[in-house]
């Protein structure tokens, strides 16, 4: 087992950046006996259609209203917890909803696991997320229900995402507090279970650490019946993004993988062919955004030096900025332009150099080839770029405009390609999903 604490560096940043001055909209109170603080989170309610509710009877389905746990909810959790710590509390905090809770995607699960780990290890504060019912004289935590689709307050089943199904969050409960296995919390950072089909690892900064992790990812996938072509594709992506995250951010990164069965349509459109979804999340602890280095190189350092290599691309990016800057809004700002710039095949590494910029191109190629539906995005700072096929097509020279016209130079990205969240990711995070036929 790796010594996780010794490897983790720069862990505060994500927490600090998401401790908001403005109070979140939820409500908190002490329970009468005083040793637990409970906080009802303010979450969006969404209806999930046709959730299977009976393991014995596949046709039994219901529509269920759930509370959607997003990255913004996570920022609320961080803000409230830090506020309690500031007030000197040492007691557990239970964040709850009256409804089932459903995390919005795998990146949210991966980061939530980390946040719980961080407060437990660094601040000695236990955080629990659950479904709860508060009445006049009691607070009842709902762990399981008779229909088998509730576990520790979370909704699971087909409506849910891969990471949640395998997460320690499903057993991390205030109701088990006294008999809880404390090693459970280490699963938040480092976890491999071939039966549950999840592999999560923290990569250190040593020169070979990323290669060792990539080798382990390959071993994990080869136990999951992913076909060789699929393994190669996922390895190409991890092999570019993980070392990049460490080199670019000079910090650790997390690689998180899970597999789920899925079905592919045959020639008649019937979903009969067996396949595997591979979910991949990669995020780092860096304080550099996706476009930070490249912005410095092209718009700041370049005043002092002329580029011999890739001069034309650099000049095109400068021209594009002259165009884009006339159309900046709250929804598409200079940081978003910097994010888009990282997709234009120029390395952010300092200096005039002929090479690099390959990592992101590899990512786009693999997403174009192996992603059936569009669950993929990159998040950096407050801005996310969606990697849907319709936005990531390139023009003849390889520029990617994040618009349907495939035009980086003369058009800003389409509205749907850029999104904003109130959660701040100090480095870079990728939320990806690939679909392969079973071997």
């Amino acid at each position, binding site marked *: 087992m790796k010594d996780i604490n010794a490897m983790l560096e720069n862990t505060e940043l994500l927490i600090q950046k998401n401790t908001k001055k403005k109070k979140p909209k939820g409500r908190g109170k002490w329970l009468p006996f005083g040793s637990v603080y409970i906080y009802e989170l303010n979450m969006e309610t969404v209806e999930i259609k046709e959730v299977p509710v009976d393991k014995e009877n596949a046709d039994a389905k219901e529509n269920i209203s759930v509370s959607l746990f997003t990255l913004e909810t996570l920022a609320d959790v961080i803000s409230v917890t830090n506020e309690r710590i500031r007030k000197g509390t040492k007691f557990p905090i239970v964040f709850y909803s009256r409804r089932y809770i459903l995390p919005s995607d795998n990146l949210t699960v991966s980061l939530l696991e980390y946040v719980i780990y961080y407060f437990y290890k660094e601040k000695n504060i236990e955080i629990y997320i659950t479904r709860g019912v508060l009445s006049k004289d009691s607070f009842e935590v709902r762990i399981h229900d008779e229909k088998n689709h509730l576990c520790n307050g979370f909704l699971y089943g087909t409506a849910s995402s891969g990471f949640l199904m395998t997460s320690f969050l499903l057993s991390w409960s205030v109701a088990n507090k006294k008999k809880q296995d404390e090693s459970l919390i280490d699963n938040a950072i480092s976890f491999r279970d071939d039966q549950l089909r999840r592999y999560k690892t923290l990569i250190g900064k040593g*020169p*070979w650490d990323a*290669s060792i992790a990539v*080798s382990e990812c390959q*071993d994990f996938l080869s136990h999951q019946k992913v076909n060789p072509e699929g393994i190669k594709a996922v*390895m190409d992506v991890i092999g570019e993004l993980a*070392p990049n995250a460490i*080199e670019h951010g000079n910090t650790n990164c997390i690689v998180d993988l899970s597999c789920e069965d899925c079905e592919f349509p045959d020639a008649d459109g019937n979903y009969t062919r067996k396949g595997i979804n591979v979910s991949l999340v990669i995020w780092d602890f860096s304080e550099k955004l996706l476009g930070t280095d490249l912005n410095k190189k092209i718009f700041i350092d370049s005043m002092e030096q002329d580029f011999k290599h890739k001069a034309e691309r650099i000049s095109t990016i400068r021209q594009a900025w002259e165009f884009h800057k006339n159309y900046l809004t709250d929804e598409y700002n200079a940081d978003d332009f910097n994010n888009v710039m990282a997709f234009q095949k120029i390395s952010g590494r300092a200096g005039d150099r002929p090479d690099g910029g*390959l*990592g992101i191109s590899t990512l786009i190629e693999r997403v174009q080839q192996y992603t059936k539906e569009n669950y993929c995005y990159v998040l950096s700072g407050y801005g996310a770029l969606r990697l849907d096929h319709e936005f990531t097509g390139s023009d003849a020279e390889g520029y990617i405009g994040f618009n349907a016209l495939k035009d980086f130079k003369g058009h800003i990205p389409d509205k749907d390609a850029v999104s904003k969240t109130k959660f701040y990711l100090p480095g870079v995070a990728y939320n990806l999903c690939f679909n392969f036929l079973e071997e």
Partner: protein
Amino acid sequence: MEKNIIEVNIPDNVTIVAGPVPGREAYRLCKGSIDIEERNILRFPPHVKQIIGSFFTGFFEELSKSMTTGEIAEHFGFDSNMPSYESAMDSFSRYISNN
């Protein structure tokens, strides 16, 4: 040109070599044996199954300051008997064609 065999050192628990940082590290360990007048044949150990990603960006970082990519392509090759040969060729061609 004479053939100059270069043994590339890779730790035992690495089966997939990925990224520019190991590339730089591998170059640092073997640069004493490289002769840029000759054809250098890189030989990775048998436990290495694949070389992926931007390994060669790191490996040739220093040399690319004094050599063109054409010269690098001409003066470097791989031992065709090693298990990672195919992936090495793939990553190397990708490196050469992108620069």
